[in-house]
């Protein structure tokens, strides 16, 4: 009894042709790996589409979210993205607002903002400072962690977990220092 792999070895090896990459090509960025296969049974164009589509719809999906084990990176990675959006979004909003402010008669220069901020009650000032400082510090510290990973270091599970919790601690400490001590 020949094993299925053995039967496959008896077939002629297909010729594999790749279209050469041309830096000056203006065609579509998507290329097809052209391989010379001979189908065992010729199926008409439309019917093949139908069968394939129905097969796809019936395929089972491997469990993914239901079996995921919560780890520190599950939180730090989205938070890194979200804090990045917040800080960059603030800068973008400020830049755009400053540019269009003359059209609407707004005063968004530093003197006005500093005066308005200084008039707030102390609790509001401290909480606002912490609310601005924490996303920034978290993103910075987590970004440094990413740069460490980019050198190929600290990829063992224990190291990653330690790094995650260190980043959380450092970000809280750093934000606290910036908000309350500076």
């Amino acid at each position, binding site marked *: 009894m020949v094993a299925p792999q053995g039967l496959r070895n008896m077939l002629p090896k297909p010729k594999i042709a790749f279209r050469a990459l041309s830096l000056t090509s203006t065609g579509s960025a998507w*290329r097809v790996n052209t391989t010379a296969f001979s189908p065992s049974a010729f199926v008409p164009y439309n019917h093949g589409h139908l069968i394939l589509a129905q097969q796809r719809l019936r395929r089972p999906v491997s469990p993914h979210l239901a079996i995921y084990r919560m780890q520190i990176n599950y939180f730090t990675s989205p938070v890194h993205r979200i804090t990045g959006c917040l800080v960059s979004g603030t800068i973008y909003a400020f830049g755009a607002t400053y540019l269009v402010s003359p059209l609407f008669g707004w005063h968004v*220069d530093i003197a006005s903002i500093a005066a308005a901020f200084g008039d707030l009650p102390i609790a509001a000032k401290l909480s606002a400072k912490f609310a601005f400082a924490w996303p920034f510090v978290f993103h910075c510290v987590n970004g440094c962690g990413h740069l460490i990973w980019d050198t190929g270091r600290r990829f063992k599970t224990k190291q990653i977990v330690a790094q995650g919790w260190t980043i959380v601690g450092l970000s809280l400490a750093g934000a606290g220092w910036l908000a309350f001590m500076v």
Partner: protein
Amino acid sequence: MASIIRPAVFRQSCLNIASKRAFSTKPSPTFPAINKQAASILSKNALGNSFVKEVVPKSIQVAAFHASGRRPILPPLPQVIDGTANDAAKVPSPSPSHGSYHWTFERLISVGLIPLTVAPFAAGSLNPLTDALLCGTILIHSHIGFEALIIDYIPRGRLPGTRKAFDWLLKLATVVVGVGLYEFETNDVGLTEGIKRIWTA
């Protein structure tokens, strides 16, 4: 409380309540799709769930949903087949400027941001040139970050128009903010000095 919605029968029996010929290949107006009057075989709606909808009544579908642990909340998208059924999946052609060089550039900007951010606050306010450099680097870093967001959440194959729109919107926003920050640097005290003044107000 949700238990009052769950029917007494299991999902399988819900679906079996439908006709015994539910999943046969008996020709009908919607199966095979070639029998459909107007829609092209390649149109996105041709192969939706019309097959299921025709055979299993809506009430049975709803009951089956509540009876099952599965959550088919996101049904599969309309099946689109690129080329023939025998073609392999398309592989994007390699492009170093969008791949390797982009990655290196992104990391260089990120690394450069660290001294640029720390220095002005540690050493007292510096001259407008370094401040402008900081603004520019932050702008580029933010642009790359937002670009990654758009690439992740708006796939080109599924939403080509939306993706193009957001791409250009981001470019426009970056230019507008760039001009705004330039005006801010020129007319006002600068980013680091400004943050310092607000922080210690």
